[in-house]
């Protein structure tokens, strides 16, 4: 049957439609469901109340991350240390009980594979190209980096997936973000996605699924692609994805949940067929020249508030939209910044290297390269490096990266969401500034009154060394 050319997203969508109703709503099959402690307890409770089972426990994987403290989890004798906050402890205990009770694989808080759910999925080969992946967390978009259709859902939807392995959805529009050319020295996937959000705005992708295309993404590592797709949600899109290729296949081969042998060969053959057809139409296209992108940092309280590191804090009047002017004024007030101040003069007291955006091995290597043989500046009160998973942590330790971090004055932590959101003990104090590799600079995101500047791991390391926002290219020979 000759069919019209389709995009990657449309091919994955079509392959998962169970039923389509007249008004266009589809019942979509879900291949992989990741579960963490914060958005799942009420869903499990509701299943119990209604006497329903988990339809496909084999397609579900649970791991704690959001609430878990990142300090030592075992004492010297190897016993589990208690969690001080009783509410966090109760949420974690609920997951630990619910997962086995419903027959779901559970990665324990002290297991070597434990980590942030969006780092663990691809790393375990649980997230696969061409699959539909959901999780009760908006940064599920990350898994698009391996060529999956992945998006965050609310708790009722978590329950819906647990009970039926499907979701009721309407198909999104398609948006192409094409980036061609070469990223300059010191310009990383994080700088690229911050720049993209600056261009399209936080509502730019609303109602769309983004496909990132162009030679920049073809050359990009799988880890870099996960970073880019992770922040699709900050651009308003529920999902973002990149066509799976040999890099992705090499990344996944041999991972714990990945297919093997003849299955692997069949899988790869199917994955290759998913790339957007020549002539397929996107509803919207944005073209960006890679050469325009510089190391980028955020100045305000929305992820679209970004400027190149060589720039200055913008004046609210520089925005044409009056509501944006007003928002900028509020942001600057919250951030304690004056218009016109060069970003490189902004002093920081905290550095956070971690989160599902930037906590994979490549991120830690990039930060360590800057920190090697250096120390954090005296004004930097708190600097932590939080690997995205136990496996990342182990590999970093094998490479000696942990020593570079600790010698530079960083704390080397256990895996978890940490200071990405103020839900566990890692918080930025009120009024203090943090150079952060996470994904949201919202008011209070890293703690009440905390001031967040988003940037790449290398840039966060550079800020640690100088005690202010810094162009990393000045520290490493380029």
């Amino acid at each position, binding site marked *: 049957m000759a069919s019209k050319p389709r995009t990657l997203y449309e091919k994955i969508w079509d392959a998962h439609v*169970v039923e389509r109703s007249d008004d266009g709503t589809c019942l979509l099959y879900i291949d992989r469901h990741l579960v963490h402690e914060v958005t799942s307890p009420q869903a499990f*409770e509701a299943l119990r109340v209604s006497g329903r089972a988990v339809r496909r426990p*084999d397609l579900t994987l649970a791991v704690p991350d959001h*609430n878990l403290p990142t300090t030592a989890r075992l004492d010297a004798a190897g016993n589990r240390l208690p969690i001080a906050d009783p509410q966090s402890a109760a949420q974690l205990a609920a997951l630990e009980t619910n997962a086995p009770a419903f027959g779901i694989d559970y990665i324990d808080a002290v297991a070597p594979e434990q980590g942030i759910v969006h780092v663990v999925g691809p790393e375990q080969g*649980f997230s696969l190209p061409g699959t539909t992946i959901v999780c009760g967390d908006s940064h599920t978009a990350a898994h698009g980096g391996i060529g999956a259709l992945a998006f965050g859902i609310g708790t*009722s939807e978590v329950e819906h997936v647990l009970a039926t392995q499907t979701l009721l959805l309407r198909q999104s529009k398609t948006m192409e973000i094409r980036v061609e050319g070469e990223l300059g020295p010191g310009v990383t996937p994080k700088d690229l996605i911050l720049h993209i959000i600056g261009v399209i705005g936080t509502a730019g992708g609303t109602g769309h699924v983004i496909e990132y295309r162009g030679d920049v993404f073809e050359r990009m590592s799988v880890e870099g692609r996960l970073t880019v797709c992770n922040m699709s949600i900050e651009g308003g899109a529920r999902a973002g994805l990149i066509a799976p290729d040999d890099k992705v296949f090499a990344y996944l081969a041999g991972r714990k949940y990945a297919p*093997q042998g003849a299955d692997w060969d069949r*899988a790869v053959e199917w994955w290759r067929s998913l790339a957007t057809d020549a002539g397929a139409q996107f509803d919207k296209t944005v073209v960006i020249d890679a050469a325009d992108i510089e190391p980028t940092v955020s100045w305000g309280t929305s992820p679209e508030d970004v400027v190149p590191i060589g720039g200055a804090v913008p004046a609210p009047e520089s925005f044409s939209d009056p509501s944006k002017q007003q928002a900028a004024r509020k942001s600057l007030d919250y951030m304690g910044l004056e218009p016109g101040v060069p970003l490189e003069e902004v002093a920081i007291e905290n550095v956070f290297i971690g989160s599902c955006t930037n906590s994979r091995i490549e991120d830690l290597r990039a930060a360590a390269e800057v920190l090697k043989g250096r120390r954090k500046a005296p004004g930097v009160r708190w600097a932590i490096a939080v690997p995205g998973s136990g496996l990342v942590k182990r590999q970093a330790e094998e490479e000696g990266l942990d020593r570079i971090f600790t010698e530079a004055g960083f704390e080397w932590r256990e895996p978890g969401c940490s200071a990405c959101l103020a839900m566990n003990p890692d918080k930025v104090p009120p009024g203090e500034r943090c150079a952060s590799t996470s994904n949201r600079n919202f008011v209070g995101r890293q703690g009440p009154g905390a001031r967040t500047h988003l940037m790449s791991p290398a840039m966060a390391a550079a800020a640690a060394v100088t005690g202010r926002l810094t162009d990393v290219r000045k520290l490493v020979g380029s």
Partner: protein
Amino acid sequence: MDKVSTIAGRAIPLGLKNVDTDVIIPAHWLKTVSREGLGKGAFETIRQAPGNPFDVEDFAGAPILIAGDNFGCGSSREHAAWAMLDLGIRAVIAPSFSDIYSGNAFKNGILTVVLPPEQVDRLLEVAKDHPITVDLETQTVTTPFQDRFEFEVDPFRKHCLLEGLDEIGLTLESVGAIENHERKRAADLPWLDAPQRRDAA
């Protein structure tokens, strides 16, 4: 989900615009394992002010809330709907709602009624001293004074609310189609089932 048809009683005349999900339930209430009990945190900041409508004795247990434009904007936290349900609210009347909030409300059996601002203003006035009635079947809001305001509701949502169907119950009516899909998937893409779970190399 309980069946929803007629919701009658006192209505809290809140009237505020842009009530966001942080106002409905502040973030520190999210560390809970239950949907219940969140009523204690509902509208916490508003309720700290003396003389706020929630603490007027006449409105104790009122099943209806009347608010201004853009009710429920902000985060996707379903806790906002749970907190209101726990407070006893079964219907919210406002000139407009955030999409995410109204979706979450619907999933929890809370009816969101959109009426033009003049009608909402009239109801805010009546609600101070008198009960009002929201009828889903006839899609009307009525007062003891012959006010009769019609509202729109998505037919699918109306059906679910009237029959007390939850989306899961409805989806499970399609279990045959789900099983078919699973069979086809197992034949075409067998590696997607029962991942091997072998030890990492």
